[in-house]
Each structure stands twice: as structure tokens, then as C-alpha cells.
């Protein structure tokens, strides 16, 4: 085998190895059903941990209060869906999680949420704890500078968790209402 061929083989097997490693990493990044986190529900000021994700399905949206368009629109839409669910609305928990805890203190979040359906809960707390929650579902939240301020690029899907706290589906706030209600009803029925 010439040195050139062996180099090709070496590089080739290296690439295959990297690809396998990459797949492995990807698999390890898949949703983890457990793992403790400790946040605060902003309305009751009660602790909110992985235990609170059990017993009832959850629709979870990540955002921040300074977000001018997507977050308020998603929260208004969530309120409309809750009304659309009628009596079933109490069988699901709607939670808005801030990705910007430095600006969204529990008090500020609670004030913010008064503009929306009263059944929507809010989560804030330490950044590291929020990242434990967002990390387990692969939620994107990147801080981007905006002049002397900043914004967040963030996952705008509403995550649907079953009553064990496992991510099973997602719904887009721009989806048609009948489609969204169908997904929420299916989640409740699981």
C-alpha cells in the first residue's frame, strides 16, 4: 500500500469514526425524561421542579417578556386554545418559561402574565436551572446583542409533554386552531 493510499484510508476511517461519534452525541442529546431542576412558579411563588411536570400533561413555551411579537402572540393564542378546550382546559397545564431570567424576575413575569389568560403559569429562577429545563428538551435560546440592549433567538414551538413530563409532540402557535386543539386533546387523552 502506497503512503498515499494509506493516508486516504487513514483519513477515511477517521471521518467514519467522527460520523459514528457524531451520531452517538446526537443520540445522547435526545430528550432525557428525568433530571432535577428547581424553578419558581411566578404567580404562586411556589417551587416548580420536575415533580410538578408529573400527573398532568403540560404545554410549555420558552420566551422572554421583552420579545415584541412572537411571545405575546403565542400567549394570546394559548389563551384562545384554553378557551377552545372548554372543560378540558383544567386537564392541561400551560407554562411560559423565561429564557431571560436576568430581566424577567418572578415579580416582573407575574406582572407581565396579567395581560394573558389567567390559567397560564410562568417559570423563572436561576439561569443554570432554566438551562437544565431547556436543555432537556433541546430548546434553543441564544442571546444576541441589539444596540446597547439584547434580544433572544429562541425556539418558538410550544412543547407538549405527557403526564410523565416526557416531550411527545409540539405545536406551532401559527397552526390552525382546529389542528392545535386536536393535538392538545390527544395529549390530554394519552
Amino acid at each position: 500500500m502506497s503512503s498515499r493510499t494509506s493516508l486516504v484510508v487513514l483519513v477515511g476511517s477517521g471521518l467514519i469514526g467522527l460520523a459514528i461519534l457524531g451520531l452517538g452525541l446526537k443520540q445522547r442529546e435526545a430528550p432525557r425524561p428525568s433530571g432535577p431542576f428547581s424553578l419558581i412558579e411566578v404567580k404562586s411563588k411556589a417551587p416548580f421542579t420536575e415533580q410538578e411536570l408529573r400527573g398532568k400533561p403540560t404545554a410549555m413555551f420558552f420566551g422572554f417578556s421583552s420579545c415584541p411579537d412572537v411571545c405575546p402572540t403565542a400567549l394570546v393564542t394559548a389563551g384562545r386554545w384554553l378557551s377552545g378546550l372548554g372543560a378540558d382546559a383544567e386537564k392541561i397545564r400551560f407554562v411560559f418559561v423565561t429564557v431571560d431570567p436576568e430581566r424577567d424576575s418572578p415579580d416582573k413575569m407575574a406582572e407581565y402574565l396579567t395581560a394573558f389568560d389567567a390559567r397560564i403559569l410562568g417559570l423563572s429562577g436561576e439561569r443554570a436551572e432554566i438551562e437544565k429545563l431547556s436543555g432537556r428538551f433541546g430548546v434553543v435560546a441564544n442571546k444576541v446583542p441589539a444596540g446597547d440592549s439584547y434580544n433572544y433567538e429562541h425556539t418558538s414551538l410550544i412543547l407538549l409533554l405527557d403526564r410523565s413530563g416526557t416531550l411527545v409532540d409540539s405545536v406551532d402557535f401559527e397552526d390552525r386552531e382546529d389542528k392545535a386543539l386536536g393535538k392538545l386533546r390527544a395529549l390530554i387523552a394519552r
Partner: protein
Amino acid sequence: MLSRDVRSQSSSAVIMVAFLALLALAPHLAAAEPLVTVSEPWSRVTPPGVRTGAGYLTITSRGPADRLVSAESPRARRVEIHDMSMTGGVMKMWQLKDGLLIPDGGSLVLAPGGKHLMFFELERGFVLGEKIPVQLHFEKSGTIRVELVVQPLGAKRPTPPTEPFK
């Protein structure tokens, strides 16, 4: 009879045109007639405690092309021109530092989910029904003043339609 009618019609038409021209020119004696018109300027209620807001409007060119360079408002410390996208379930937003080109004879819609004016450090939140004064600075058309009519949270479009601003 017929010719007198035509003559009197045409002379009143001349007077009318002259009057309209004066009316149109009066506010722009120092500046050129704007190449664009702005219609349906609107915004949305800001939730309590929030100090950022968004502005939406439609800019129509009667040609040639023009560019919205910047915007300002007495209600915000800073107004920027932004665009956003939603790809793969992730919302991204960025400043359009070169402003917005309004193509010759075309029109540009700033609307939720896309291009918008972004208000930073509001002096106070936007309340339903109030009007937010904004100055839009164009490369060729100069400054056009509009008032954004504040619509409910989550509104997708303005209601009722508002008069065009020139």
C-alpha cells in the same frame, strides 16, 4: 352653449388643480414631493412592565425607488428597523442596518412575523387605542410623520383601516 360649458368646466378644473397643487405643495415647499405614501400604521398593546414594542405599516412607492433609512419616536429612546424569521421552530430577529428599499412603484408591508419597527426603552407602555407618533426618514422623500394606532395584544392586522399618510 356647449362650448361655454366646456370652457367653464375647464376653467374651474384649472382653478381646482391649482388649488390642489397649492394644498399639496404647502407642507413641502422646502422639500420635494414624497415618492412614497405610508398607510395603515399600527402597533399593539404592550403587556405590563414591558419596555419594548413593535410598529407595523405599509409603504407604497409611486416611483422611483426610495429607502426608509431610519425612524424615531418621542415615546422610545431608540427605534430600529428589524426583520425576523421562523425557521425550524426557532425565531430569529435582526436589525436591518441599511434600512428598507421600497422598489419603484412597489409596496412594502411591515407586519407581524416579518419586517417591523422595533421600539426600545419605551417611556411608557402602549395602551389600546392610543396613537404613537413616529417620524420615518426616507432617503429621497425626507421625513414622513405617522401615528401608529395601538391595537389589542395578539392582533394580526389593524382595524379599522386608517387614512394614508403622505
